[in-house]
């Protein structure tokens, strides 16, 4: 940095510049998977989970956790969009005008989602059918916007990539846990396989647990149960991880 240039800039901008310099310098020195970088990956899985701790992305957690398979596919799609979105926004972070940064983020996420959708429709038609509306729903996932705004705009591409993977995985883990219980208890199946035996029209025709008079709990198929399961997960997580409990 030449002194002449620095003089023109206001104090605030100087500070910003230094921050960026500092960040990019520290990035160069760090190993690819240093302790701090590993933390970016693992933190969102537990201590800073987007769903159970930050309570983001609840709406999609309600919509697609009736069965395990869509939940898994959705998690993978979010991993892709979030990692790519974070990298793209991070690469552009020194170019984006501050006043329209949210619009820029939306454009990036929406474009990525359209790309995923179009490519799937052309090459993996069956997967695209399986995902149907969920692909579009990724745009509305507040975790993605949240990470772009909170992390990618201030960090380098590699860190942002890890942060994206970590947060998407943290989101996916909860989705899969909730879907596991909802499909198992709601329809007695996992990934479409009849785990608890076959439910025939009468008790005599049934096998497994159903032959003993067990009934599926239809409440698990309805959206409120997703919230209740998420609540139970939060409860369990906080009883195990004491530092998550708020003081008051």
């Amino acid at each position, binding site marked *: 940095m030449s002194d002449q240039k620095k003089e023109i800039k206001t104090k605030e901008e100087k500070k910003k510049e230094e921050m960026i310099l500092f960040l990019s310098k520290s990035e160069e020195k760090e190993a690819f998977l240093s302790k701090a970088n590993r933390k970016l990956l693992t933190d969102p899985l537990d201590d800073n989970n987007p769903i159970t701790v930050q309570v983001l992305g609840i709406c999609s957690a309600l919509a697609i956790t009736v069965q395990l398979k869509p939940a898994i596919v959705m998690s993978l799609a979010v991993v892709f969009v979030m990692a790519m979105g974070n990298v793209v926004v991070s690469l552009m972070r020194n170019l984006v*005008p501050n006043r329209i940064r949210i619009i820029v983020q939306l*454009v990036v996420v929406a474009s990525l989602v359209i*790309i995923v959708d179009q490519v799937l*429709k052309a090459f993996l038609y069956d997967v695209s059918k399986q995902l149907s509306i969920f692909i579009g729903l990724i745009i509305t996932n507040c975790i993605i916007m949240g990470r772009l705004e909170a992390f990618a705009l201030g960090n380098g591409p590699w860190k942002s990539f890890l942060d994206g993977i970590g947060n998407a995985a943290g989101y996916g883990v909860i989705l899969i846990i909730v879907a596991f219980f909802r*499909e198992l208890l709601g329809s007695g199946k996992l990934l479409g396989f009849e785990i608890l035996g076959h439910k025939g029209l009468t008790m005599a025709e049934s096998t497994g647990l159903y032959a003993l008079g067990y009934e599926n709990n239809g409440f698990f198929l309805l959206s409120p149960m997703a919230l209740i399961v998420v609540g139970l997960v939060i409860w369990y997580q906080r009883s195990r991880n004491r530092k998550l409990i708020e003081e008051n």
Partner: protein
Amino acid sequence: MDRNSNAYTFIFSIAMVLVVAVVLSFLATSLKPMQSKNVKQEKMQNILNTFVGDSLEVDGKKMELTRVLASEKFDEYIKNQYTLNYKGETVEGVEAFNINLATEIKKPVDEQNFPLYEAQYNGQSYFVIPLRGSGLWDAIWGYVALKQDLNTIEGVIFDHKGETAGLGAEITTDWFQERFKNEKIYDGNKIVGVEVKKGYSGGTDKSDHQVNAISGATITGDGVTNMMKERLSKYKPFFEKLKNSKLAIR
């Protein structure tokens, strides 16, 4: 250039929009042929699926009815394609396969074209009728194959645009579609279709025009009921003609 100036903001947004527009339209146009091929093959697969089932025998080997296989076998099994009007007369010059029900269904009934496929498979004749209606969130559609008596259902296939996964979206599953097999669409002299009935207790009764619904998918189920009744009844004039002519016993 100052990153917060108006000029920069304008230049940046214009450049961004241009780049995104070019990338996305290039992608969309270059992938379009592959996508339409998939959609066309899937339509063939769905039509064949209603009377062939999930797999068929080719040269003594059991093969899954994939999109590719369906597109190869389509012309072999589909003997005739009719385009009908509401009076049951054939319309010339409109190919049944190219009729887009989504736009057709919005026209007044006397202007609509009704596609119908006549199939021959394992020595049996089937008539395949495309369906379209609305579910809870968006369009639902499907195909139903009738046996030669024009009354008994050989098989159905349903699909949807955006029904809830695990609930309404279950209409695409085999176990739900299986319930329609051998159901009758005529009640006396009227086409009533098949009702998707909540809390159905008829077991495997095939003469009551009802099948068991999916829990949590009442509105999608009603959509299926309405779609079958509305679409199938439009073919009644043609069915009557067929029955009265020797054409039916081809």
